[in-house]
């Protein structure tokens, strides 16, 4: 009790670093299944790369996207998704954690429960997604130190947006009781839309990519930034990511007031 230190940024960083170290150890602990999963993921992605290679070999481009463009949005989406699940492995388990009353453990600890619960797990196979983006870049022409640095910043922003959208959908569990199917649909749609050229979709539905399913901020705008090395837009994108994160945080806090800690007594009466 004689340590009123809680909430300082340095303490938070130390905590996040410790959580990250624990995450790395989990990968070592499961290295065989890690390698198998990374292999499977690479295969899957390679099949799609082959699809695009065949298609674009026939027509030169699809919706104005060349092969390199499609591969860059794949790389961005894959690495962003990977970072989100490596750093905040509970983003897509948040709903079931709330439902089963497992938030208790995090509420008992002197750290923000949202950050604490998200950072307390890593998804081993997500390291493969993270690595895949860089692997793709290694094979693409024009990759240099500057593009790698830019790519990393863009992917970090994308990771924050992924995590914000997923965790917001999961937080709806506070209000709906079971947001599982909804969250699954959001996940699938967001990933799918982020992997295909924006231009194939009607302009009438593209507003979705800049609102509830922000593929635009994860893949399409970052692609343009990456292509033209448009550094001034990077802080704007990171700002947008911060807004999404703030929204997700607000939703979680609002829901937390309704948290019933798995006291489902009465539901079966």
């Amino acid at each position, binding site marked *: *009790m004689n340590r*009123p230190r809680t909430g300082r940024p340095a303490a938070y960083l130390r905590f996040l670093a410790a959580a990250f170290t624990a995450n790395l150890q989990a990968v070592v602990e499961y290295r065989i299944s890690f390698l198998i999963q990374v292999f499977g993921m690479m295969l899957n992605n390679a099949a799609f790369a082959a699809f695009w290679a065949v298609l674009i070999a026939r027509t030169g481009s699809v919706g104005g996207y060349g092969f390199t463009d499609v591969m860059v949005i794949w790389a961005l989406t894959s690495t962003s998704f990977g970072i989100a699940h490596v750093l905040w492995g509970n983003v897509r388990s948040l709903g079931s954690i709330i439902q089963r009353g497992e938030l208790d453990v995090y509420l008992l600890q*002197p*750290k923000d429960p949202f950050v604490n619960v998200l950072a307390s797990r890593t998804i081993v196979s997500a390291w493969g997604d993270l690595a895949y983006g860089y692997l793709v870049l290694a094979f693409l022409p024009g990759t240099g130190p500057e593009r790698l640095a830019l790519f990393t910043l863009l992917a970090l922003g994308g990771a924050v947006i992924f995590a914000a959208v997923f965790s917001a959908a999961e937080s709806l569990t506070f209000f709906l009781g079971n947001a599982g199917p909804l969250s699954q649909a959001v996940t699938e749609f967001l990933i799918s839309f982020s992997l295909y050229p924006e231009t194939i979709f009607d302009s009438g539905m593209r507003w979705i990519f800049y609102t509830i399913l922000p593929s635009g901020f994860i893949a399409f705008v970052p692609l343009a930034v990456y292509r033209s090395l448009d550094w001034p837009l990077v802080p704007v994108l990171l700002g947008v990511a911060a807004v999404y994160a703030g929204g997700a945080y607000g939703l979680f806090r609002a829901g937390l007031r309704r948290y019933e800690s798995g006291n489902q*007594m009465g539901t079966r009466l």
Partner: protein
Amino acid sequence: MPVITVENLSKTFRTRVRSEGLGASLRALIRPEWRTVQAVREVSFSVEEGEVVAFLGPNGAGKSTTIKMLTGILTPDSGGARVLGLEPSRDRTRLAMGIGAVFGQKSQLWFHLPPSDSFRLLGAIYEIPAPELARRRAELVERFGIGPYMDVPVRKLSLGERIRCEIAASLLHAPRVLFLDEPTIGLDVVVKREIRALLADLRAREGVTIFLTSHDIGDIEKICKRAIIIHHGAVVVDESMKTLKHRALARKYIGVKYAAPADLELPGLAPVKRTEDAASFVVDTRKHNLQEVIRALVDRGEVLDLTVEDEPLEDIIAEVFRGRSEEEARGAARAGGEAES
């Protein structure tokens, strides 16, 4: 000075009524039916520094809900609680620094990592300086005898090994109050005894206030000095363990076994169970002299075995509940059947 004060604490849950079948599910989507459950009603008590208190009650009595309000997990609807001078729901993070908790089966250890890694992570969460963490860790490892498990992934530990690590982990930041919700659930007798010894030792060494819920009467008899019994969300008994047990001392359970069939008719005392050569009796010492009863039994034949036991605490609590329910029933009848919930 009390470390925990609770005044008129109440909590109501509003839950959705779900019925079986697709039609009912669809109806519920449009017009959900709600029902409210008063989990805790007007509960008041206080706990002094260094006390060891048992918080008892049947399933759904409101034990966990109360403990969750005391630790800041749930916000009370009305009434107030103070723990270490703080209001749990408002000062949750500050309070967390001063309390420890072991909650049933909700583990704070990382499942796939050895406890040593979780301890390091908890050190960061509780902002314990490295040298202090190392000292405290070494001390707890020694006292809890968990040295051999520190580098084994938690998923490979037995439940008993895990719960010892779990309690040690909750003590890393040297909390002044320890909340335990069903700490020995699912453990075997030997491990239960070990855990109780550790808790008694903890109280003796560090003066930690311990607030414990359990179904296991053994836990409570062995380590608690005071019992609070809660039923239907309200406190029905709050007295020292001694007083509670004193009621039990009025009654003794006697078991006897003879070498050969014997006549077991005692004047005014019928056996609760009997075979040809064995029987058990419940003796109310306010009506019968215990010594005379035993002498009479010994006179009936060659005794192979004779046991005298206190009434189990379960039965005492059940009796309290039974008395309470009867009162309630009478009260309800008087009030013209005022509906509950």
